[in-house]
């Protein structure tokens, strides 16, 4: 594995995740009660023996820098190899943001060449995937491919979100359709490519912008040996609110496809030191994941609580995802919501009330969530928001980073409201 260099593309700005990615890259999005999305790919590298890793980051790179640091958690703090974060940079003769995935790689070609890899493994830092890269590498060598592309089966109704791939019986890719409206292809491109280094260097000569559109498609069209490697394990693109929420709650199923308890393939992350979960005398908790540092005095059902969440006495959490160090005061209630870090829910406040009682017929007026289908019916609450005592947040709705009392009209935030982000110095006490 010493001759493999992994390049993790972490450029995703997560527009479709709204406030959850206002100040972080998709790769840095918290997932599964204690992880960040990129932990899955970094852990895969660690367990597959890939020891040279470059992370190409552009959007909110500080979130990734903080998390990855020198790569200790993944044993990537190495004298030779290890992990390096590659951000856009200036020199006297050059300045430029990454225009696309291929451009990001081309702009860092000097560094890549210095590592002298025989092959470059391109990965996406925005997907939750538990994958051993060794069989992929073996298949690539065996098939003598120019490029190997990992593909996986997706449900037909989701095909429009992905790049769909048609594969011949010998494994050669015949066509690549980006986000097709209609297709009979069942295999999606996972955004994982293995290139021979020399071949990739040649392909980048033409200054392509996007790896799929400007590199892979022309290769496929001109009949090169672009081979598919089919992967059948867990792979999830959590790039939308709906898919993030669904993938999160799926972890609660006893038969969850994503195995995080496997001691042979632990998901490694930068772990802060927190005491064990404390459950109070009146705690009622079931069907949930709860991380160290949580204090539970109220009720928690079908939810995921990250480190340091406090559920006060009489407070209730239902079918929600609550990120680190968010506090629910006494009697607060959170339902079908995603709460970012450091949120304060006031005494008796309600977040994620449904707009109308179930079964109540519409009156012909537009649905309160109209135009907000991307929210999947949820309430999204940005980092550092304070929901006042007795406040009510009706879903679907979004409170931006740093939400405050002024955002509520008579203590109520109506369905369909989107409160814009505040900068941190605008909400100083």
């Amino acid at each position, binding site marked *: 594995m010493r001759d493999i260099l992994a390049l993790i593309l972490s450029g995703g700005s997560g527009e479709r995740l709204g406030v959850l990615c206002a100040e972080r890259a998709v790769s840095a999005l918290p997932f*599964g*009660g*204690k992880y960040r999305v990129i932990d899955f790919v970094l852990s895969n590298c660690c367990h597959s023996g890939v020891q040279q890793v470059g992370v190409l980051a552009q959007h909110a790179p500080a979130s990734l820098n903080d998390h990855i640091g020198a790569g200790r*958690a993944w044993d990537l703090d190495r004298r030779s190899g290890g992990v390096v974060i590659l951000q856009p940079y200036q020199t006297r003769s050059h300045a430029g943001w990454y225009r696309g995935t291929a451009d990001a790689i081309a702009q860092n070609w000097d560094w890549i060449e210095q590592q002298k890899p025989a092959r470059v493994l391109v990965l996406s830092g925005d997907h939750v995937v538990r994958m051993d890269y060794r069989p992929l590498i073996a298949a690539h060598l065996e098939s003598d491919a120019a490029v190997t592309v990992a593909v996986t089966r997706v449900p037909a109704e989701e095909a429009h979100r992905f790049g769909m791939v048609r594969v011949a019986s010998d494994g050669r890719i015949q066509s690549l359709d980006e986000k097709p409206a209609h297709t009979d292809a069942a295999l999606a491109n996972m955004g994982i490519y293995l290139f021979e280094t020399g071949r990739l260097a040649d392909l980048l000569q033409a200054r392509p912008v996007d790896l799929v559109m400007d590199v892979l498609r022309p290769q496929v069209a001109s009949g090169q040996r672009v081979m598919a490697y089919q992967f059948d394990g867990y792979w999830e693109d959590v790039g939308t609110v709906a898919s993030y929420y669904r993938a999160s709650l799926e972890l609660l199923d*006893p038969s969850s496809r994503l195995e*995080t*308890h496997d001691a042979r393939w*632990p*998901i*490694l*992350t930068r*772990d802060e*030191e*927190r*005491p*064990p*979960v*404390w*459950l*109070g*005398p*009146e*705690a*009622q*908790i*079931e*069907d*949930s*994941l*709860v*991380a*160290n*540092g949580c*204090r539970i005095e109220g009720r928690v059902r079908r939810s*995921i*609580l*990250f480190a*340091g969440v406090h559920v006060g006495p009489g407070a209730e959490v239902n079918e929600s995802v609550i990120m680190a160090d968010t506090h629910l005061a006494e009697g607060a209630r959170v339902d079908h919501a995603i709460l970012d870090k450091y949120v304060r829910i006031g005494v008796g406040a309600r977040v994620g009330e449904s707009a109308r009682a179930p079964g109540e017929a519409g009156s012909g007026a537009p649905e309160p969530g109209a135009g907000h289908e991307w929210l999947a019916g949820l309430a999204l609450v940005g980092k550092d928001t304070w929901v006042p005592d007795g406040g009510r947040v009706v879903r679907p709705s979004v409170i931006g980073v740093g939400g405050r009392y002024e955002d509520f009209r008579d203590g109520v935030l109506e369905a369909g409201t989107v409160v814009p982000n505040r900068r941190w110095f605008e909400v100083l006490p």
Partner: protein
Amino acid sequence: MTGRYAFILAGGVGSRLCLLSERRAKPAVPFGGKYRIIDFTLSNCVNSGIFDVGVLTQYRPTSLNQHIGIGRPWDLDRTRGGVQLLQPAPGLATSDWYQGTADAIYQNLLHLKRRRAQEVLILSGDHVYQMDYNVLYAFHRRNHARLTVAVTEVPENEVSQFGILETEANGHVVAFKEKPKTGASGRLASMGVYLFDRDALIRWLVEDAAMSHSSHDFGKDLLPRLVARGEAVYAYRFPGYWQDVGTLDSYYRANLEFVQAKPPLDLSDPEWVLHTQTADRPPVRVAAGAKVTRSLVANGCSVSGEVMNSVLFPGVVVEKGAVVRNSIVMHDTLVAAGAELDRAILDKEVRVGRGAKVGTGDDMTPNRACPEHLSSGLVVVGKQARLPEGLVVGRNARIGAAVVAEDFTAQVPAGGVVDGPESMH
């Protein structure tokens, strides 16, 4: 804080902790749902800005060596300073097994040679407390002391378990009695935290080493002698929580104090983090239908049954229909469906078979093998023991490490003892 240096005495045998410290040194005994006892002292050092520490081990050092390693969790993996594990070594003129605590330091005086510290802090790795040693240094210097001993008030009936000091109003120590049976006045006990002037320490240790009648122990020999001849020994009265978890009962009680709504120490204080070596484990999984109240449960646990008033270390599995009550359950132990625990302390990697009942009945017969340490109703189960399906274990019972189903010829009555295979040593 450069130039500060601390020795931590971590060789303790901990015989009163019975099975828990049979195969590990007392400072390595798990505590509080994810920590080891020595984490408190090591974290106190780094939180006080002391990043140069020598840990003296002797009794079963393997688990401590593994736990501390190069000191990463405490930021003690440093280019200068850091943590050094100091084990007794044969061969040198001054080297042998450590005779007493003073001898342990005497044999390691070499490590002070190139260190510029004016004072040397000597700590014990056996205690549960949070203390800023800077306060101790300030007290020491203000009083121009040669030796400052940190003290805490202990209950009248426990006086005979500690070194008891008498002081003048300004803290000057006028009397020291080690574990006095009678005649002690006052209840100020030494916490095993000593701040010495470096040069005085060296002089006193060399002097003590030459005395053939001395047992070379700080509490038994050195301190009484220094106080008797009027050296500048001062007592610093520590106002906070301090617990010597040296017996099974005090160990059990102290652990369960941490499941209270107001625990004696705030383990989540971001200004005073309690660091430890942790494996990466997923969040706690609580299944539908489970019930967990008044407990500490660490990452990696999976609970489908009922847990109350208990401490679960990482990786404990409580299956459906199982009940864990008033118990301490260490890493990766499995409590199978329908099993019940009450007032039990289970070491790591134990398997409790389906429907087994551990800690039942009203019979309080003290333990046959160690009646003095196991008589309050606790059941202790050693590491990797396998308890067969349907087994019933009475109170005050002791089940040895690595026992297997064949070691049980019948149910275990109150006070019963089941011994496993002899340990390799």
